[in-house]
């Protein structure tokens, strides 16, 4: 291991502070009695109470959570298939285009994706009468489309780094492809699938631009409500909301991390036992 110079350590300290100071400030000020950011008016939980009574915010949050859960699930299904095709199928017809369509959404500016999907939905409605208007369905489809690329890349990298010989052995022993997938491949890539689902869920929950393009009058998601209230000025209720999100995310990630570490440990013990019983 190389020694890290004091320059590198200094930049690291600055970088981590840069990443975390704004979040920590939000959390502190969510408990501030005063409306002003610079004035400390004493501890208070009134912004949390206000948030609980903000009906518009609550219903938007509920809508966003539902869309995020549904679209993350579809996105994981499609993204896993796409990642498998890219990692395991070698060459197939149209692979270049397929690869392009998987990586391009990772960097595509959201305004372009949003506008193009809206125009597609409008044209489809003119042509075949579906989707009727815009709302939850169109937002969900849009979110599946842009998040499945992230799932595909995660699954693909996990599969690429994975030893193919186990799958080949199962095939030699006469297992059907579907069985190989469910019994061998799926358990091994499950950490990638879990993190893909979580990532798709957060991306969907977080998306303002694409949802604004493809939403209808009756479907206002949480980011849209946050955006319009932030544009009007600093509102401490948003600080309270941010604190709740940070708390939920941190808990979720710690729980997922502990669970995955435990699974990995069990797997390793299993492998050791299998190896020792063979030997």
């Amino acid at each position, binding site marked *: 291991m*190389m020694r890290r110079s004091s320059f590198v350590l200094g930049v690291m300290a600055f970088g981590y502070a840069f990443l975390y100071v704004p979040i920590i400030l939000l959390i502190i000020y969510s408990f501030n009695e005063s409306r002003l*950011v610079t004035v400390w008016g004493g501890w208070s939980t009134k912004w949390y109470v206000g948030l609980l009574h903000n009906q518009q915010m609550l219903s938007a949050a509920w809508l966003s959570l539902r869309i995020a859960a549904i679209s993350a699930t579809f996105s994981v299904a499609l993204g896993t298939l796409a990642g498998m095709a890219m990692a*395991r*199928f070698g060459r197939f017809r149209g692979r270049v285009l397929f690869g392009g369509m998987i990586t391009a959404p*990772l960097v595509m500016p959201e305004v372009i994706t949003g506008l193009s999907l809206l125009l597609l939905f409008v044209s489809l409605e003119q042509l075949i009468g579906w989707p009727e208007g815009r709302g939850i369905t169109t937002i969900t489809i849009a979110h599946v489309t842009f998040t499945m690329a992230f799932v595909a890349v995660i699954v693909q990298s996990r599969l690429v780094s994975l030893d193919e010989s186990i799958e080949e052995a199962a095939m030699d022993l006469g297992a059907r492809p579907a069985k190989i997938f469910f019994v061998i491949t799926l358990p091994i890539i499950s950490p990638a699938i879990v993190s893909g689902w979580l990532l798709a869920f957060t991306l969907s929950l977080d998306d303002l631009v694409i949802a604004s393009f493809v939403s209808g009058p009756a479907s206002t998601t949480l980011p849209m409500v946050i955006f319009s209230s932030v544009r009007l000025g600093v509102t401490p209720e948003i600080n309270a909301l941010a604190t709740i999100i940070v708390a939920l995310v941190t808990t979720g990630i710690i729980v997922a991390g502990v669970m995955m570490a435990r699974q990995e440990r069990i797997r390793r013990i299993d492998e050791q036992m299998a190896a020792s019983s063979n030997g």
Partner: protein
Amino acid sequence: MTATPIGKEIQAPGSGAGRPLPVRLTIGLLRRLGLTGRGLVILVPYVWLLLFFLIPFAIVLKISFSEAAIAIPPYTALLEWTEEAFLTIKLNFGSYIFLLTDSLYAVAYLNSLKIAFVSTVLCLLLGYPMAYGIAKSPTSWRGPLLMLIILPFWTSFLIRVYAWIGILKQEGLLNNLLLWLGVIDTPLQILYTDVSIYIGIVYSYLPFMILPLYATLEKLDDTLLEAAADLGAKPFGAFLRVTLPLSVPGIVAGSLLVFIPAVGEFVIPSLLGGPNTLMIGAVLWNEFFANRDWPVASAVAIALLLFLVVPIMLFQYYQGKQQEAAKQ
């Protein structure tokens, strides 16, 4: 890689037996159509992406050639049956001519490219030493340090950008701190300038820079640096001649992951930028939502895509190369 085990059609012993007749018939029919399990695995996401990712661009292109009209949807049809029953195509270049003649658009495009470029460089300057530091940390530290890079990314992007308003504004925390330290006498105008956009973009996109950089730096063989040191290279010289060239793929991938979305960024300039900072994402947004001019919005999108085609293809090339490298 030659073997493609999953979904590969092989006649495994007893592969047809043991399934109910309808299932066998369906599988047989699908195979007749050329749809094997392997085919379906590709086909389902393929069709989805064609329909919801590729075809929409064709529609954007089509609508960029139509004319705005007071109708639902607010544009004219491109294909029309004339009285003699001929199908005519009316291509209208009006939107593009409009983009070329009104200097607002050129200014917005150039400004977006400039802001995205400067932010990418700043991201790299901050992200490279961080990724390097993480990669050179003790093994047990790397996981938590990386997790801390990713963690902010999981919390709301919108709220994290909003947090900077409270920090950067005239009576905000940064100005108060600088006043208290005696660095400045009067509060600086930081919010609603280009500087606050740079801060916002670097802050939001830093993880995208660090992760690919870390991936390449971590794989770097330390013995190369030892060899350089044995041959008399000073640490910084060895860094410039060994580490830096070998980490070029990470630099390119990270920079493109920041640059391309930053060019079309909407949220950051509209929350942190001032009235004088025009960025093309916000222009497109206004054409669409405020002016309801769908053809011009489409033309703006197509022009933006033309700027980004080369960077996007470069990104795909490096992405593919990284996956190939991971295979070996």
